[in-house]
């Protein structure tokens, strides 16, 4: 094993897959001169050349559409949308084109496309740069949705996403890029649709995604003397590893879902729906979603802090569920 940042893990995945398959190319804004806002693409232009690392004008609809068009004609684009908030300017190419072209064509087209973007708050970037929009994509048939929380998952899942023949929305978190984690020295992939129990426990299941995995783990640790918390990270929302979640809830009887996205209509609600439908008899108390406030993200730090689940609010929610 070796320790790398989440950003570096992404870069390794891209490097390896680009070396493996010359159909893979990168496209997005400022990816040559800056390596993207996250810096995850730094050095790739130098390594692979301008033909395979394509810096675009400020035109998401054009370059995401280009990516879809390239995918259906045999390439394997990895497009970067700087912030997930900006999918609003190119959503048609994702929702009505990428997600639907295969089905509408009766299976004739194949769309091996990855769209990477970053979501989340915590940096005082305010309402248009802090959203978590995975629920939109998960509600769109034809898209896979991936949300890695650790460096190891980032690398292994991105490699799978690139090899997948379907459109994959790959959602990173802006506060994770600099975080470090262990990854294997040798090559590996993590299949899409495989949850991971990040911490085993007996009393309550906490399903958390992206940055919230780390907050949930911290909460679990701080409660270790009181409650045995199992933390499950689905890692991919579509496909969703319900078996893993069910097994956990059947053991613990209690479910808390922690997501950064606004609570109302978030993907957590769908996890609650499925767990309730499929494990009703096991539930000893009502499952709950602890999510972001149903508010645009405010700029000012104390307000922003109040909008995002944090260790204390997770701890409190766990306590109230097990009491």
């Amino acid at each position, binding site marked *: 094993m070796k320790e790398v940042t989440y950003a570096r893990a992404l870069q390794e995945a891209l490097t390896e897959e680009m070396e493996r398959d010359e159909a893979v190319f990168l496209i997005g804004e400022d990816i040559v001169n800056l390596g993207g806002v996250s810096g995850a693409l730094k050095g790739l232009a130098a390594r692979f050349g301008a033909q395979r690392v394509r810096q*675009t004008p400020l035109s998401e609809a054009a370059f995401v559409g280009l990516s879809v068009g390239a995918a259906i004609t045999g390439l394997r684009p990895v497009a970067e949308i700087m912030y997930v908030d900006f999918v609003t300017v190119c959503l048609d190419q994702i929702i009505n*084109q990428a997600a639907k*072209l295969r089905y509408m064509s009766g299976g004739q087209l194949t769309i091996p496309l990855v769209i990477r973007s970053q979501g989340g708050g915590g940096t005082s970037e305010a309402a248009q740069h802090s959203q978590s929009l995975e629920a939109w994509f998960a509600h769109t048939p034809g898209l896979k949705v991936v949300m890695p929380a650790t460096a190891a998952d980032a690398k292994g899942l991105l490699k799978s996403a690139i090899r997948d023949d379907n459109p994959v929305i790959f959602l990173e978190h802006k506060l994770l890029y600099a975080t470090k984690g262990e990854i294997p020295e040798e090559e590996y992939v993590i299949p899409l649709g495989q949850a991971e129990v990040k911490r085993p426990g007996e009393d309550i299941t906490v399903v958390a995604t992206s940055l919230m995995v780390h907050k949930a783990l911290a909460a679990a640790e701080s409660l270790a003397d009181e409650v045995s918390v199992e933390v499950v990270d689905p890692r991919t929302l579509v496909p969703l590893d319900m078996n893993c979640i069910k097994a956990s809830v059947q053991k613990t009887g209690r479910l808390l879902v922690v997501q950064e996205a606004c609570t109302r209509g978030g993907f957590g609600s769908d996890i609650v729906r499925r767990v309730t439908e499929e494990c009703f008899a096991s539930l000893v108390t009502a499952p709950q979603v602890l999510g972001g406030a149903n508010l645009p993200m405010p700029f000012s730090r104390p307000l922003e802090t109040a909008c995002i689940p944090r260790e204390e609010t997770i701890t409190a929610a766990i306590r109230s569920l097990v009491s």
Partner: protein
Amino acid sequence: MDIQRDTLVEMLRLLYTIRAFEHKARQLYEENRLAGNFLGALHSYEGEEAVAVGACVDLRKDDRILSTHRGHGHCIAKGADVKLMMAELLGKETGISKGRGGSMHMFSPELGLLGGNGIMGAGLPLALGSAFTAQYRGTDQVTVCFFGDGSSCQGTFHESLNLASLWKLPVIYICENNQYAVTTPVAESFPVPNIADRAAGYGCPGVVVDGNDVLAVYEAVGEAVGRARAGNGPTLIECKTYRYQPHCMVIPDRRDTAEMEEWQERDPIPRFEQYLLDQHITSEAEQMQLRQQVNEAIEAAAAFAQVSSLPDPDTVAEYLWA
């Protein structure tokens, strides 16, 4: 222009085929509607045939096109089998998109047919990608992208023309200006006479052609294709034309009759027939015979479509994932 006789005859065959296909499609649609079977949106290409034919007849099989909601003509001109198309219109399992797509979504990647689109302007960015693949692979394939006058008002027009020209992508953007977007006349869509004039702002050639003159379209597209194959980037071609039918079957038509008649006088088919007669390329008898053959093929397509089976509802989830 120096066009081979075979090509000219093929153009005539394609013009006849599209016209006959649209007639039959409307008839089947109406019959079904009266029988309580509503077949979605059907957009007739009648009147605009010369654009698709002039643009596609000389494309190679490995060249690609992006079609529109009004796409039957494009599909036929790019070589699609009218049987499979007709079956698609009826939602049959034998359809060109296995009944999943319908009139607006006909695909045949092995013919370079990357599909129609129900979202106006959405094909323009997709065409960038098809052209990008050719450039990336170093082939000389070109991509032709059709869109309407109304659709040219979408933001994707701007983003795509800019990127295509900036990267010199081998794409030909063909605006089918049929004077209306549903009921909205071009004068209420944009304050300039020609969409093609906008090409200047992107640093690429813009050409206005008579879209009812198949040879004019052929010539303009031919030049653009040459430019694209040579690595000199995109061209914007605006074809002025007119649709004969209402926007789609269910939308009332209140266009001016004088205007409609005026355009019918410039019908692309008799014009081209006359040209072929004048140039002694085909005789009236040959034309009649060709028309006859086409009509039979369309009747056979309709019969094929009608006897084909509907998809089995148990297969509904097929084709979602690769």
